[in-house]
């Protein structure tokens, strides 16, 4: 696309050059879209961190200590897995785009779905036990 003030291309950093070897630079729109998707995963991870801490810090009057700690631990472990996995997902997509191969399936999506389901099931059990 034309522009009024194109800037010179910056050189690739050593870290990026080491991680993303070979291939050719993909369409910049795809690279930026990949970056935004990565950031969306990071925000999901941050929401899980906030949720895990909130459960432990603000629900002392609602939950038993055991259930509270379990839910908080599951949420925080999930947050770490999603945070770590989002980087590797970003990296794998960038590599696929550089080598023009099909994009990999997201492993972190089922992890998030299963983790969320586990936390919901724990809460359901707790609520049912409390009712009886």
């Amino acid at each position, binding site marked *: *696309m*034309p*522009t*009024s*003030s*194109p*800037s*010179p*291309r*910056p*050189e*690739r*950093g050593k*870290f*990026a050059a080491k*991680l*993303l070897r070979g291939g050719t*630079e993909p*369409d*910049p*729109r795809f*690279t*930026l*879209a*990949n*970056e*935004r998707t*990565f*950031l*969306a995963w*990071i*925000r999901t*991870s*941050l*929401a*899980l*961190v*906030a949720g*895990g*801490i*909130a459960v*432990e*810090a*603000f629900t*002392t009057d609602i939950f038993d200590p055991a259930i509270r*700690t379990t839910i*908080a*631990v599951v949420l*925080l*472990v999930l*947050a*770490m897995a999603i*945070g*770590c996995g*989002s*980087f590797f997902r*970003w*990296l794998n997509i*960038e590599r696929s785009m550089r080598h023009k191969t099909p994009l990999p399936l997201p492993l972190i999506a089922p992890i998030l779905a299963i983790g969320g389901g586990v936390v919901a099931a724990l809460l359901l059990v707790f609520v049912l036990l409390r009712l009886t």
Partner: protein
Amino acid sequence: MMRRGRSVPEPEHHDAGLQPERTSLAWSRTTLAMIVATAMFLRWFPEYGWFTGTLVAVALCTALGIYITQQLRYRRAVSGIANERIHADAAAAAWVAGSVVVLGALGLFAVLFLALD
């Protein structure tokens, strides 16, 4: 976008999809999410000031780092769109992901090993 000095010309692009703006806003949202997530830890500030301080420092360093490099990142995206070529920012991605993992680990440490009420 942010303009710090009048001598620096504002970069321009003609991308109808406004990719640089959307990406820049995504980074801003991430900064805000990081600050909000960290604010949850302040509940333990009266009992564990040192711990909460470390945690807030980690998050604020990352948030500040993102904020400071926003203009640079936007210019990089604009020039990338203009030149039809952009270098993926692996260091920024690793840095942010690493910070989130550290935050999660510190949260896990707090839940499992600190005597919280």
